[in-house]
């Protein structure tokens, strides 16, 4: 009895189990995928914002995909401060030039990369933003400088449609 031969029945068991597993997975997948963003949520992909009223040193917060977006018209001081930071001082090194193509305008998701709270304007040790939830400090470029957040605040895809209108998304 030590020699166990593969029989027709073993093949049938394996084949039945395999087909059953594939069938079960095929049924389970729609149940899982229905929880992903639906077509109507995805359809709200872009939003246009009039920024003509924004003066330097002020921030406009708009809602895009259910999340706040900060649009900051930076003062020259803030720009200088952001551009004079050494890369090695940064937790998540990114050049301000890459984050704000037009230095006067900083557009980013107002969502702390730690656990998703909305950071407060003009607060914190780096004159940028401060997240009240777990104490993350961001600089004038929205880069993480101190605290538990792992990354800089995200810059979404955006463009200037004309001099006064930004299209986000």
């Amino acid at each position: 009895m030590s020699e166990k031969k593969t029989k027709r029945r073993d093949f049938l068991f394996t084949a039945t189990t395999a087909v059953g597993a594939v069938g079960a997975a095929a049924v389970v997948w729609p149940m899982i995928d229905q929880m992903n963003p639906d077509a109507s949520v995805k359809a709200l992909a872009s939003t246009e914002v009039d920024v003509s009223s924004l003066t330097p040193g002020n921030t406009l917060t708009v809602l895009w995909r259910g999340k706040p977006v900060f649009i900051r018209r930076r003062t020259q001081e803030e720009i200088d401060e952001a551009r004079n930071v050494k890369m090695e001082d940064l937790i998540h090194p990114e050049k301000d030039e890459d984050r704000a193509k037009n230095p006067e305008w900083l557009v980013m998701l107002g969502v702390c990369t730690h656990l998703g709270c909305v950071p407060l304007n003009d607060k914190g040790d780096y004159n940028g933003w401060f997240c009240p939830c777990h104490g993350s400090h961001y600089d004038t470029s929205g880069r993480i400088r101190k605290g538990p957040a792992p990354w800089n605040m995200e810059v979404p895809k955006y463009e200037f449609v004309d001099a006064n209108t930004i299209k986000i998304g």
Partner: protein
Amino acid sequence: MSDHDYRPKSKVGQWFNDRLPLLTLANHLTDYPTPKNLNYWWTFGGILTFCLITQIVTGLTLAMHYIAHADMAFESVEHIMRDVNYGWLIRYIHANGASMFFLAVYIHIFRSLFYGSYKAPREIIWIIGIIIYLLMMAAAFMGYVLPWGQMSFWGATVITNLFSAIPLVGEGIVTWLWGGYSVDNPTLTRFFTLHYLIPFLILGLVVLHIWALHVPGNNNPVGIDVKKPSKDTVPFHPYIVIKDGFALLMFMIVFAFFVFYAPNILGHADNYIEANPMVTPAHIVPEWYLLPFYAILRSVPDKLLGVVAMLSAILILAVLPWLDTSKIRSAVFRPLYKQFYWILVADVLILGYVGAMPAEGLYLLIARVATAYYFLHFLVILPVLGIKEKTLPVPLSITEPVLGGSPNLAAARNKESKIE
């Protein structure tokens, strides 16, 4: 066990019981031999059953009036509070009932820790209990989101964002949980569905918990195995039923105090402001019963490791029966463990306190020390203690210490044998 021989007295009863032995089950539950030295810390099982049923009944009635929609949820809760007949009462019972449920479960868990109820042969009871506890936390968290206030919204945002700490797939999982790019209506409706489902899962697990309990029988304050039935046990009914009933009445006084005199003291004022995705409240705190774990999360400066530490703090309990190497169950006979037990209680209370405070300066330092100690207790102190500790002599039966302490031993023995 005697209940296997049980036969109903009436003909109808016999006819029914032969086809579905429900009466045998009822007989087993009433006659179930229980150690006669159970103290009031053992009444929390019954109290927890009461809490679960209270939450299910009040939850069902609230669901008749609540509307799970981001635009209407907040208003529908106010509608329940102001317009629905006794809506305020039902909602306050449900909201405070969650806190009472956790209060009871923490006492129940710490009872287990003191008397070693998690040790062989009761590991499965313990693990089922931990699963119930996890489900309770999930249900409580999702329930807190339903009123769609500021704390609901931002609590949901912070907790779901914990999953984003998972490398590579984290962001995808969070989007999947939300059903969008932020906490919004799809999140609310699925949370409502799951909040409705979980209590019934818990109910099923409670049945398994009690079933697993009835195999070895109750542990007891002395922590020794008892022969059952014997002079060390009493039938569940009426002895334990009356004791549980009295404890439940006391518990309900506390419960009623919160419901009628301080219905919002355990909640947060910010949750009476409707959810606003543009503004985060200045100070986000979870409900009191999650604070120790929140403190652990915040005490670790790294996002992923913080989440790992928080989850480990809960899951470490599941392997506790194998971390505690001592053969002696009850802390009564473990002089060192008894001290470490109370240090752990203090440690968890401290974690709860700093969890409610801002994560900075001294609070953060205390949180870090307390977190380290929490893990030290389970991973180092317990395994070592079981080997090093000199335990006290354990009595051979529950009756022995009582008789041994009697100045008139012979008379007591005599009396005891007469009772038998």
